[in-house]
């Protein structure tokens, strides 16, 4: 597909990189010639220097004939105007990033009146990710599907877990409803079989009802207890989205922010939250703020390195759970994974949403892609499809399907009925099917089958 992107910042760069891998033709517009030059060297894209909300520039970028237009400049207003103009010029679908909390209620208006097909807000989505981490205390990350009815949960097997040395078949004996989809052990990821054995430090992707997941987290060595307090460093935009749901859950929150004005603004908006002005990387200062006494430490500053250092220090001080915002995920690979719990990458869920939209509109077959997420394991993806009558997967029970290695059917949602797939279950037309796949790049349900 032909895709025009305005804005070559963190999100714009991630979009260009990921969409080129998906095989699309990208045109990038940015004002800064130096940034454009750097991106042109690195990525196989066409670049244009100019103002992305000017009609001439958009025409030069062939917006009138493009399939998807995405505007992700730092300014919300520019994004909305650019996306609206692009739609009027004839772009197939237009997407704008709008992250200012003051526009939070205007999204439907932009959608209906300006013809902007999708509005993305990475900050709000990151905040939602963090809140989910509070809801599943044991999980490293949670990927919701089907409006939160199905949650794909990632858990780390702790060193003192009872599950160590047990095979998957034994786990299924103890907890029948749990389904283990993927095991990442060291640098290796695999789709497990019944005979696979869990080791300390493994990262597992599981699906199942809440009770089963809670029972399994206990086996993995995570005590089931609710978090009741959090220390947050960084009081910028994400905090505005994060604090209200945390406060609703009755969690005690303290925010540390280095900039006095930002701190004052936040304190004024949330009078019930303690906002401290100070440097979140100063260890003595953190001890003075009783870091060790908090259940959760959340790092949300704009500097990845600071966030990571803070999380490592919190871990060392004995904080049970750390949530760290990291834009460059590759940085985390330099560190011992056991010292970091939950990593949040703001642009990831936005790019996932856009990739899902684009993949589902490349009409290759009838089954439509309804949900898409890249998992923390390198190369692993979770995809939700609606099965159609014409799909070959609906013709026989799962045990008779010849599924390509690296793919698993994780979950079936039939109407309101949730089905944990077993060998005898059969996919029917209209079912919502969740697939987890490793290094496959699938676009349709039938692509999990051997041809």
């Amino acid at each position, binding site marked *: 597909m*032909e895709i025009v992107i305005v804005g070559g910042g963190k999100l714009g760069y991630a979009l260009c990189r990921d969409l*080129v891998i998906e095989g*699309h*033709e*990208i*045109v990038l517009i940015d004002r800064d*010639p130096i940034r454009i030059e750097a991106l*042109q*060297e*690195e*990525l*196989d*894209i*066409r670049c244009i220097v100019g103002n992305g909300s000017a009609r001439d520039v958009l025409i030069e970028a062939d917006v009138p004939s493009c399939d998807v237009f995405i505007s992700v400049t730092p300014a919300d207003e520019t994004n909305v105007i650019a996306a609206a103009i692009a739609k009027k010029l004839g772009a197939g679908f237009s997407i704008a990033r709008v992250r200012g909390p003051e526009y939070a209620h205007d999204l439907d208006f932009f959608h209906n009146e300006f013809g902007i097909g999708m509005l993305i807000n990475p900050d709000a989505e990151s905040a939602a990710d963090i809140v989910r981490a509070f809801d599943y205390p044991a999980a490293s990350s949670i990927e919701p599907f089907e409006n939160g009815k199905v949650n794909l949960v990632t858990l780390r097997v702790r060193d003192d877990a009872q599950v160590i040395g047990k095979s998957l078949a034994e786990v299924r004996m103890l907890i029948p409803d749990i389904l283990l989809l993927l095991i990442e052990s060291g640098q290796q990821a695999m789709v497990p079989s019944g005979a696979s054995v869990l080791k300390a430090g493994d990262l597992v992707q599981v699906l199942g009802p809440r009770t089963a997941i809670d029972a399994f987290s206990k086996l993995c060595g995570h005590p089931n207890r609710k978090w009741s307090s959090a220390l947050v460093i960084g009081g910028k935009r994400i905090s505005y989205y994060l604090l209200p749901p945390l406060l609703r859950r009755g969690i005690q929150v303290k925010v540390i922010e280095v900039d006095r004005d930002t701190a004052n603004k936040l304190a004024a908006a949330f009078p019930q939250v303690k906002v401290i002005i100070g440097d979140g990387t100063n260890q003595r200062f953190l001890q003075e703020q009783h870091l060790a006494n908090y259940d959760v430490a959340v790092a949300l500053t704009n500097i990845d390195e600071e966030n990571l250092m803070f999380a490592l220090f919190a871990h060392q001080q004995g904080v049970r759970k750390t949530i760290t915002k990291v834009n460059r995920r590759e940085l985390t690979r330099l560190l011992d994974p056991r010292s970091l719990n939950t990593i949040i990458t703001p642009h990831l869920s936005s790019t996932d949403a856009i990739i899902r939209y684009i993949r589902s509109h490349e009409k290759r077959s009838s089954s439509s892609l309804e949900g898409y997420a890249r998992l923390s394991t390198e190369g692993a993806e979770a995809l939700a499809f609606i099965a159609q009558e014409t799909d070959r997967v609906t013709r026989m029970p799962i045990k008779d399907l010849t599924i390509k290695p690296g793919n698993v059917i994780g979950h079936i949602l039939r109407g309101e009925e949730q089905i944990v797939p077993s060998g005898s279950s059969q996919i029917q037309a209209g079912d919502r099917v969740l697939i987890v796949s490793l290094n496959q790049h699938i676009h349709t349900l039938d692509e999990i089958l051997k041809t």
Partner: protein
Amino acid sequence: MNTGMIRYMLGKLLLILSVLMLPSLILGFAYSEPRQVLLSFLASMAISAILGYLLSFRKPKTQDFYSQESIVLVALAWFSLSAVGALPFYLSSGASLVDALFESFSGFTTTGASVLSHTLDSLPRSLLFWRSFTLMIGGMGMLVFIIQVLPNLGSHGLYIMRAEMPGPNFGKLESKVSSSINILYGIYLSMTAVLTLLLRLGGVPWFDSVLLAFGTAGTGGFNFYPNSVAHYGNPYVEVVIAIGMMVFGMSYIFFYLIAIRKYRQVLRSEELHWYLGIILVSVVLISIGVYQRYDSFGSMLRDVFFTVSSVNSTTAYTTVDFRPWPVYTHVILLFLMFVGAMSGSTSSGLKVARLAVFVKSIRQEMRRMVSPDRAVPINYDGKELSQREQRSIAFYLMTYLAVFLILLAVISLDTKTFSSAFSAVIATLNNVGGGLDLLGPSMDYSALHDRTKLIMCLAMVLGRLEIYPVLILFAPSTWRKV
């Protein structure tokens, strides 16, 4: 530097080269040529394939490929493909090794200078075809082949495109390097096909039409008759080739823009205005000096336009011996040789775009002297030219002059007059092929010393790749590990 990857890609290119010799071999069979010729092509193909296989047999450990690797690959590719491409000449025509190398380098660099022109009647047709076919291959470059074997090259292809595309500026037509290069090659091939058809319609035999079209498309212009295009004595053919040379001297991006109906962008291009202006002024000035020699205005215009178009596009086909023309016309032709045609074409030389920027820089400097505080940006194609682009264009001229002088000094060791040394350098460094008084229209270099011929081979590659890649290839720092 990732030498493994360079070795691997070089091997793939040699494998492709062996396939590219296939048409010549088939032609040899079709004309039932002597067994020795067929065997020599078969042997060349085998040697090229074996070398290629040995080099690309082992996959490189990492696929890392950056600017440095691309430049070294392009420079090495030109040297090694030209060297292996010399095998058919060496094995079948009885030419000496140096002569065979000279002919092959001259072909791949689209120069069109020849040491075999005195033996043209005795050369088998398959070899003549191969000789002109190398012009065609060299015209567009190696990237198109690299893309076919390594479709996942992605943005790294951009470095290669930069290293081998003539001219200071270049625009990607499409988002992907691979689709851009395929479009460019499509344009190149279809224009060549159209030219072949037009020549055939003018009564030129098929074989000659194809070879003339190759020579024009690559702006190389290998002759296969001693008196070049004048051999046909056909005004239609002369006009078609003259226009063809001018068109192949234009940026290929124009033809793409025309195909997608963006005529305005073409008409507004500053480089096009300069290009057409230079041709027009040269034709008028030369006509003033030579009109007395002609009976009819039409035939004079044809000869003058043909010569201007031929020299400016660095093709060097001829219809007339211009040596008796007044000296000032020689100076104009020399100037045209220096400048060459437009960037993004197959021609060589400095390129019209660079000349335009030089002239503008001079004007800018003068304005700055008159009023030191005045803001004087250089606008080119409606956009301000950055300091960096301006600098790189100015430096290119200096590098070019330095290389020119060094080559002149070295070649003058073996030549009798200054002007023959001078024209030998300009003929090879600018990939023109024909010189001025040394050679005249027949342009035969066979009398030169072997050492001079080898230096001229180097000069031709320097010219085709716009100097820097070759300098970088031979710089010791390129080969250091860190």
